[in-house]
């Protein structure tokens, strides 16, 4: 197995980080200077430009974990497992942003930090379960780590449609079923969405590079252990 990092990898990663920085800067500018302040909620409404893209990226990241887990179980190539784990880690970061910004919004909009409405409850369950994925993954030292993680990546995906559909399936949801934004607000939201998406891609490439380096080091260790000199030194 050749685990050397392709030369173009770092270049693409750097370009994506630069683009992410520009887009995130532009979206921050748009949030404060371009999008109008909402009349009823005031400045707190601007949380939506972080909250909605983070929630979307959470679902995308965990969806990628699911797809990469299936790919690993099918092909048994370590790179797919690395994609699943890296994507899941980033998904947890985005999910945590959602869990922090949500109560800030809720306090202003619903006069409470937390309420047991369907979307909040199902998202909290999702957060706990994917946190469990990392706990399980880090506690396995054997060769079964990748297979067990991939199986878990598939099982946990069942919760994503539940989170998505919770506001349709259960009554009493405070989240709106349809959000219609127009003009500057819509443009700002789309810009934020694009910025977070590029940030995700850049972070994923960087995280994968770390995994690649780790795999390469492991491969070298194993190759070293197989040489006769290493065997004599061990004896």
């Amino acid at each position: 197995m050749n685990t050397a990092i392709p030369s173009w990898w770092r270049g693409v990663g750097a370009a994506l980080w630069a683009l992410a920085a520009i887009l995130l800067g532009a979206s921050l500018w748009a949030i404060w200077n371009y999008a109008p302040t909402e009349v009823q909620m005031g400045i707190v409404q601007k949380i939506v430009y972080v909250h909605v893209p983070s929630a979307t990226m959470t679902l995308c990241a965990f969806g990628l974990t699911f797809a990469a887990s299936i790919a690993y179980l099918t092909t048994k190539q370590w790179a797919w497992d690395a994609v699943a784990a890296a994507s899941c880690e980033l998904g947890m970061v985005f999910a945590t942003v959602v869990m922090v910004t949500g109560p800030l919004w809720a306090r202003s909009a619903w006069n409470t930090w937390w309420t047991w409405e369907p979307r909040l409850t199902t998202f909290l369950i999702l957060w706990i379960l994917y946190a469990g994925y990392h706990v399980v993954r880090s506690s396995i030292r054997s060769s079964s780590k990748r297979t067990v993680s991939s199986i878990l990546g598939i099982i946990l995906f069942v919760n994503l449609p539940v989170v998505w559909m919770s506001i349709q399936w259960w009554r009493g949801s405070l989240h709106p079923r349809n959000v219609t934004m127009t003009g500057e607000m819509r443009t700002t939201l789309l810009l934020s969405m694009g910025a977070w998406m590029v940030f995700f891609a850049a972070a994923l490439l960087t995280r994968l590079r770390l995994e690649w380096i780790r795999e390469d080091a492991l491969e070298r260790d194993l190759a070293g252990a197989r040489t006769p000199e290493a065997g004599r030194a061990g004896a």
Partner: protein
Amino acid sequence: MTFLSVMRKDLRLHARDARFLATLLLFSASLVLILSVAFGPIFKDPTREASATLWAALFFAGVLGLTRSLDLEGESGGGDALRLTGADPYSLYLGKTAANFLLLSGVFVLVLPIASIFFDVGNLEVLPGVLGVAALGLIGYAAWGTLFAALARGLKARELLLSVLLFPSLVPLWIGAVKLTHSLWAEGTVEPVRDWIKVMAVADILGLALAAFLYELIQEATE
């Protein structure tokens, strides 16, 4: 049939271990006692508190049963021997799930009268309905629990990991069971919360279906 043989084997092993059964039953009864003391002595809404207590006790005590069923696999190479028979992995899973379901049903039969007496709720008229809810809840618990227990086999701190993964996954089942039991005890019917029957049925089917695809892979991974 493999499924029946595995179920009989697990149940026989459970039956031989009187200390395990006594611990399981005492633990579940203690949970009901602790929760009823926490809610009482004067209950605001006894039917709601009793249904929550009943299902919380069952779900927590159930982890003991699942962990024990894991241990049975490890003891004296029993799990390896089963796999060496070349039996269909899904039949093995179904056998273990059925054994876990029957074990949990036994705990339910003990805990139900205790909760009913402590909270002074329930009557014989709604008992068939409550048993139906129990069947839906415990099939799902056994299906998901056996799947996760197989996945946690061989891991460090597996009881902890089992709880971390299992309880959040079972939340739809737990809410459904509590709401339906509460409705039966309070109003004598499940009509106001009928939709939860569908949610629980979907959770049951999903657990059994996922195992059909994944159990063989889990077995290979944890060998």
